[in-house]
């Protein structure tokens, strides 16, 4: 019986007084991959942002336990250091800051949190090289400033690269597959599969069953109007691909 990584109970969150998450219940155990699907505007990105600690969303009710800790009490940077990684749906540009320096600064914080010494320059560069190979990202990209002038697909690849560098316990991938060409999709999915092990977990938000051919989920959830309305195995993704969301909406509203 593997350990629970994250447990979300009756999570409600709103923005500017408008409730977006209306009671989410979700539990991910170590070693599991959960896919989250659902129509546009149903609250998928909101859920990931709330878990990462974005303070524009107000949590009005509920509880989140991560690694035995009360997640909602932690600052966003503490959540990161504890092992939550969010691959953003829309990664921002940080002008003039090279990915190398950015990752070095981030990794130092993560290591300090774990009581580890910073890596020596040689060790750090070795790690960079290793992870670059893992996600097949070019040095041409990692030597540039974070996302500055990156194409949509390059930004997504960069997110996966950073994930590989920080080696999180729980990675939330918010539509990391959108904007990727077929080759990139395969590369990114392979990267995730290589990182996957019995101690970490993934929450993969996607609109396309296609991704789940590569990253095979243990559980598929459907988020609709701020609630998880259906949970199933990977065959649920096929069903959604085929039939769309109408039947689910009907079920919910019935």
């Amino acid at each position: 019986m593997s350990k629970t990584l994250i447990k979300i109970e009756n999570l409600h969150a709103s923005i500017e007084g408008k409730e977006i998450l209306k009671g989410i219940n979700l539990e991910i155990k170590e070693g599991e991959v959960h896919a989250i699907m659902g129509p546009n505007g149903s609250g998928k990105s909101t859920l990931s942002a709330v878990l990462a600690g974005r303070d524009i969303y107000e949590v009005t009710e509920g509880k989140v336990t991560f690694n035995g800790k009360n997640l909602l009490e932690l600052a966003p940077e503490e959540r990161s250091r504890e092992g939550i990684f969010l691959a953003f749906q829309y990664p921002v540009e940080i002008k003039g800051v090279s990915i190398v320096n950015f990752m070095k600064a981030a990794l130092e914080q993560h290591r300090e949190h774990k009581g580890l010494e910073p890596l020596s320059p040689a060790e750090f560069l070795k790690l960079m090289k290793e992870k670059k190979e893992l996600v097949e990202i070019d040095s041409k990209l990692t030597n540039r400033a974070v996302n500055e002038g990156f194409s949509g697909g390059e930004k997504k690849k960069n997110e996966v690269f950073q994930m590989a560098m920080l080696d999180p316990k729980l990675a939330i991938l918010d539509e990391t597959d959108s904007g990727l060409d077929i080759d990139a999709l395969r590369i990114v999915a392979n990267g995730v599969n290589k990182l996957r092990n019995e101690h970490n977990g993934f929450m993969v938000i996607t609109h396309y069953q296609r991704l789940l051919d590569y990253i095979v989920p243990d559980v598929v959830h459907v988020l609709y109007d701020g609630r998880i309305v259906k949970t199933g195995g990977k065959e649920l993704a096929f069903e959604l691909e085929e039939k769309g969301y109408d039947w689910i909406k009907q079920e919910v509203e019935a």
Partner: protein
Amino acid sequence: MAKQDDDIILNEYSNKEYEAGFVTDIETEVFEKGLNEDIIRRLSEKKGEPQFMLDFRLKAYRRWLEMEEPDWALLEYEKPDFQAISYYAAPKSAPKYNSLDEVDPELIKTFEKLGIPLNEQKALAGVAVDVVMDSVSVHTTFQETLKEKGIIFCSISEAIREHPDLVEKYLASVVPIGDNYYAALNSAVFSDGSFAYIPKGVRCPMELSTYFRINQGNTGQFERTLIIADEGSYVSYLEGCTAPQRDENQLHAAVVEIVVMKDAEVKYSTVQNWYPGDKNGKGGVYNFVTKRGICKGDNSKLSWTQVETGSAVTWKYPSTILKGDNSVGEFYSVAVTNNHQQADTGTKMIHIGKNTKSTIISKGISLGHSNNSYRGLVKISANAENSRNFSQCDSLLIGDKCGAHTFPYIESENPTAIVEHEATTSKVSEDEVFYCNQRGLDTEQAVSLIVNGFAKEVLNQLPMEFAVEAQKLLALTLEGSVG
């Protein structure tokens, strides 16, 4: 590119914490406070100067008496009382040392606290350091190597004694004694500073570096720097400073003059970190500096790079006179103001020769209640055919109580000239900060990183080790001011 990143990392790992704000306990000889002709005579005598220097000083003093202190619209500060300043302070005996072992250990301790690379390692790394501490040069390294090439790099006092012809010929040739109030005062009372002469066709093999530091309470600093790059020569010169915390205001009124001859190039880099005062602006350094260079010969080039984080009040416009045809002037600046700091900085590019080119990149960062003004003058005179200027002034605001102001003045008397000016103002966005937070950086670290990125174009102009120091300085300046 990858190489450079690696180097930055290697450097950063090997550099130590940078801290300022302490006082060294070294016996010093100090003049009584006050300013008059007698003080100037004594000062000149103490320094063993030739007659021409005394005459120069007295002439400047008399000019200064007739001048009025400038009033800058955007600077507010208490005017310094010039009679309440002591104009000479020297370590009791100021010998030249052959090795670091002979140097007062207190002094070494100060340097170490500052992270000043006055040690053998740094020297081996190729930096000759001429340290100006309390106005008298205490230590000079690598003189021998320089001597072989015929390069003169010494304190200006020494230059006045050893190379009076050069000094007499070039001193005040770029900044005339009556140029402005503070330049006149400096000409009258300058205590020490640096002198560099690069002979014809010589490429200076190392960065020439001077670290300034005010150490004696209530001692005004009037540094004088003169750099002459003879035909076809090249030199990169670094100036950096920190100051210990003080209760009284300390005045700093330096003059820097640079002469660049035909086909020569000078790169002048500054990292400036005078004590800015406490949160309320009390006790900071007043920094009124006149820096000017002339591209005298054809195809000459002068490049200024500065990182300014300190001072309560800064008033500074490194300027370049582009006299030779095809000469090039560059100005790269990062100025950070925090709390109640006020900075009024910028540059002047005076195009006189034909086909002259100038580039201005100014990055202003304002935090707290500070005010950061950029004032730039681009003047194209009637004979400056086909001259070009490009100016880019970007401001970054952190918080909503600070201000940034840009004043570009363009005077063009030649219709063939092209002058372009671009300006932007932006804020550190919450999305950027959150992105960094999500990777494990707290907000302060995030802002520091974003600020460094914003200033990148300028920081890239600095020699590597200076760039690392400058980044730390920026981070230090932001400490405790965001969140």
